[in-house]
């Protein structure tokens, strides 16, 4: 069993866990976490592919390594956007509940 294979299998396991979480979580935060675990798994697989493609004295193929960094930045932005939306939704729901409560108390 080579190093790259172990990392690849670990990535596949992470991707599986993430997909399961993304599809079955009932709360949006759980889905966002699932997306992150899935993304982590995909990046790990890409890393294993980089390792397998090592040549010319490098420890790994540099192209996937560069792409993984970019991918992590994009996934991080996506997570930030999703969490920001979730926070706005919570505030909006609280405001709505407040308004509903006031209407009830002032007939």
């Amino acid at each position, binding site marked *: 069993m080579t190093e790259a294979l172990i990392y690849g299998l670990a990535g596949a396991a992470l991707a599986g866990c993430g997909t399961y979480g993304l599809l079955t979580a009932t709360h949006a935060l759980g889905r966002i976490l699932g*997306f992150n675990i899935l993304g982590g798994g*995909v990046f790990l*697989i*890409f890393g294993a592919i980089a390792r*397998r*493609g090592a040549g010319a004295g490098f420890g790994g193929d540099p192209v996937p390594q560069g792409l993984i960094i*970019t991918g992590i930045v994009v996934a991080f932005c996506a997570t930030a*956007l999703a969490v920001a939306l979730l926070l706005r*939704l919570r505030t*909006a729901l609280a405001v709505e509940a407040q308004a509903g409560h006031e209407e009830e108390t002032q007939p």
Partner: protein
Amino acid sequence: MNALTILAVTVPFLGLVPLFLLGPRAGERAGLLMLAVAAGVSLAVGLCVVRTGQPQVYFSGGIAPPLGIALRADGFAAAMMGVCAVVLLFTGFYAMRQPGGAEARMPPAFFMLLLALAGALNLAFMAQDLFTLYVALELLTFAAVPLVCLDGKVEQLKAALTYLLFALFGSVLYLLGAVLIYGLYGTLDIGLVAAALVPHPPEWTFAVALALISAGLMAKAALFPLYLWLPPAHAGAPPAASVVLSAVVIKAPLFLLVRTWADLAPDALAVAAAPVLAVCGAGAILFCGVLALAQVRVKLLIAYSTAAQIGYLGLMFPLAATGDAYLSALAWTGGTLHLASHAFSKAAMFMAAGLLAETLGHDRLSGLRGAARVAPLSIAAFGIGGLSLMGLPPSGGFVAKVMLLTSALRQEIWWIALVVLAGGLLAGGYVLRVVVLALQRAEGEGPQGRECRWRAAIALMLALGAVALGFVPLAPLSFLSIGRHLSLEGLLP
């Protein structure tokens, strides 16, 4: 090398930076100006493709793939760029404040998001590299999600979150597919991968990668059965945002789905996968079409109609995968023409629905009687846009459907012909429901108010644009086949 292609991507992105510094009124004007400039650049790229008859290629930094990144505008890409640029520009005018009026119709962020969409769309249409395409798709999502929840209402935020999660799941699947392809061939350039496939038949891993990429793109394009996020997101957004979401945003993943199976996949795989895509398309047309008939709000009806109309592109795949060059080109032209005419007619219909909601104060079908008296231009735009959806002549939708039908009948694929016809009937049902109700005399006093005429005229112009597409000849367009078959000659400097 043509630098216009890279300008089509950078001009909109650079153009949105100064908008952060300007006030709301100046920002709106500057945003419209930049949109017009960006549309000019996109159309100029199209003109270059027409005049030279060659795809326009640009290598970033002057380095060719596999080391560099290529941008390449072929006929298909240039056509989609032109359509999207025109719709975005018209939407900008539709959303601007009343000339001389003080009140802003849309927050300043709207115009920045329009520019971001323009840049991301152009990148998605021209990029030749699977990872650059991933970035383009993510940029598109990041610009489209805020458009869904511009007003910050609870329903909008919920729809935006669902949309974002669907889109993110789609992009991770897409990325996994791209990663597997890199592992197989050591390059992400579509042309180089396709060239590497010619001497060796693909391994099964390649088929898995293509399936992952397709599933990801289907989630982003809301192709049946992954359409669930679309209706609440498109119907809940402010009208001007619904226009761009429905008319242009979903076109980029659909375009890439076509690119995946036409340019990346070898013919044998494309033939094998085509029936699956066609069944998804047929499901969209029939299932979402019936759901559209059952809606009680105009905007939801139009949103379900979008989910249904996407399906025609799915039907195109088995028709285009035939060995007969003429019938394949005919299906190809029909599918592209459908994308273009759907963009125009859906933009016109969402604009009209927005004006109706403003005039009447609601968009319920039950309260639509007498609407044609207070909003005649809006109803005209809705009806003429709907003409193209139904596939009645003269309209782009008619020509597109005739091409798909001809190709299906000549290849004797009967069930596709039946689905195309049934889809037209369903579209007729939901469009006429709105128009007939609006033309009826109202009981009692009827609705009051007056539509905003110049904005209704913008909607009408887009609807007439969909009609004008109906005057193209009923034959494969040579423009669309420019640069269709990727060869290494075009990619090497």
